[in-house]
């Protein structure tokens, strides 16, 4: 490998911006532009099979990673997290009452709901903003999405069991709630930060 090629390689590597052959020649102390071009082509050829390529874009040269490796360099890491108890409640309320405003959700839940909870549900793709209620303040109202039905294996919201069925299955038995309370599970239901408590990374 000749000296000029090495110099060209190092200069382009250290450069903060792509450089033209002319700029390189000037930078490297009056090397002949023709020689620089030749060096560039030979270096580019050296790199062809490698994980780095030397490429020319509108007369400016720069190094970049090989395009076929792009997927390696920009990785998506998926994390599976379980929805927090508070977020699940909010989702259930939206599902049963949609479209529903935040104030309505809070009055049904009996506790304040942090904006973060709704954000999480939106990020999950299970709820959407369904417009605004035409009352003073025009609050945003929320509804579930088709992804919600899909994820929960429901063909429609009508599949959700009614109050009578809930009672029949004991799900309305206050004892459960009292029991949970005793076990300390129902603490922090102030809705302060649902997302924070949802970090059960028991999968992933």
């Amino acid at each position: 490998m000749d000296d000029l090629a090495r110099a060209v390689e190092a200069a382009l590597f250290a450069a903060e911006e792509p450089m033209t052959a002319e700029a390189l020649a000037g930078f490297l102390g009056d090397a002949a532009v023709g020689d620089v071009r030749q060096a560039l082509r030979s270096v580019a050829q050296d790199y062809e099979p490698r994980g780095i390529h030397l490429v020319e874009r509108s007369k400016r040269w720069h190094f970049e990673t090989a395009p076929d490796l792009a997927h390696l360099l920009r990785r998506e890491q998926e994390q599976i997290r379980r929805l927090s108890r508070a977020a699940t409640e909010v989702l259930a309320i939206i599902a049963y009452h949609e479209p529903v405003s935040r104030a309505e959700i809070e009055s049904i839940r009996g506790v304040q709901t942090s904006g973060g909870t709704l954000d999480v549900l939106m990020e999950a793709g299970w709820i959407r903003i369904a417009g605004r209620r035409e009352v003073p303040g025009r609050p945003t109202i929320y509804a579930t999405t088709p992804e919600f039905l899909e994820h929960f294996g429901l063909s429609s919201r009508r599949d959700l069991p009614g109050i009578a069925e809930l009672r029949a299955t004991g799900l309305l038995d206050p004892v459960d709630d009292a029991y949970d309370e005793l076990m300390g599970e129902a603490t922090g239901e102030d809705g302060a930060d649902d997302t924070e408590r949802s970090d059960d990374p028991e999968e992933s």
Partner: protein
Amino acid sequence: MTDSGLLFPEDDTAPQEDWDGIAAEAAVDENALYLELDGWEGPLDLLLDLARRQKVDLRSISILALVDQYLDYIDHAEALKLELAADYLVMAAWLAYLKSAMLLPKDEEEAPGPEELALRLQLRLQRLGAMRDAAARLMGGNRIGRDVFLRGAPEGLEIERKTRWRCDQFALIEAYGRVKARTAPAIHMVRERPVMTLESALDRVSNMLGVTLDWIELRDFLPPHAEPRLRKSALASSFVAALELARLGKAELQQDDTFGPLRLRRVTG
């Protein structure tokens, strides 16, 4: 004395070595040497430089000669009216003492003998000298940004964290049930119970007292075949009735011991 002037941009005209200008070589002009006092990193540093001027290995320097050089230096600096930091003078005093101890006949009593002090000084100078050289070699290495260069515009490695949320149907329905259960208005129903009211107990007890003048145990006032719950209520009401009759002066009560049978009888007249 402390360090000063820690960092300053390297100017283009300066030699690439980080520091070599401070009397690295024997000064030609003696006065120039004295004027460099600001450049010393303390008396030990000055001693080291003077020692190096002896052009021998630090292990074989003459401490006596070094002491003389140091003392000369301090005298000369004072003659030039250069301001000397106190530690230079302290060192001068100590060296003067060392010199006299080395020249005088040995005093066996003296704990650290002059030879020991001289040897320790020499060892210190060796160590400082070693570090000085090491620092110079370190600075002379291939330093990033001066001799070698990193990639100018790295793309960066990106890890996009995406969260997939998990929840199931049961959890959803259960959550709704929980909300409903938690917020349902609480209604308390009190079941109807068989009771004997105070009024009826009062009537019953006064009537029964009217029959006899003997002591009667409270329990005997209770309805004989009542179910247990009614019996309990009757007992409580009859007790209160008895107290009320006693208060009105219509009956008197007697109990021999605690939790013993409570008896009452009519008060006549």
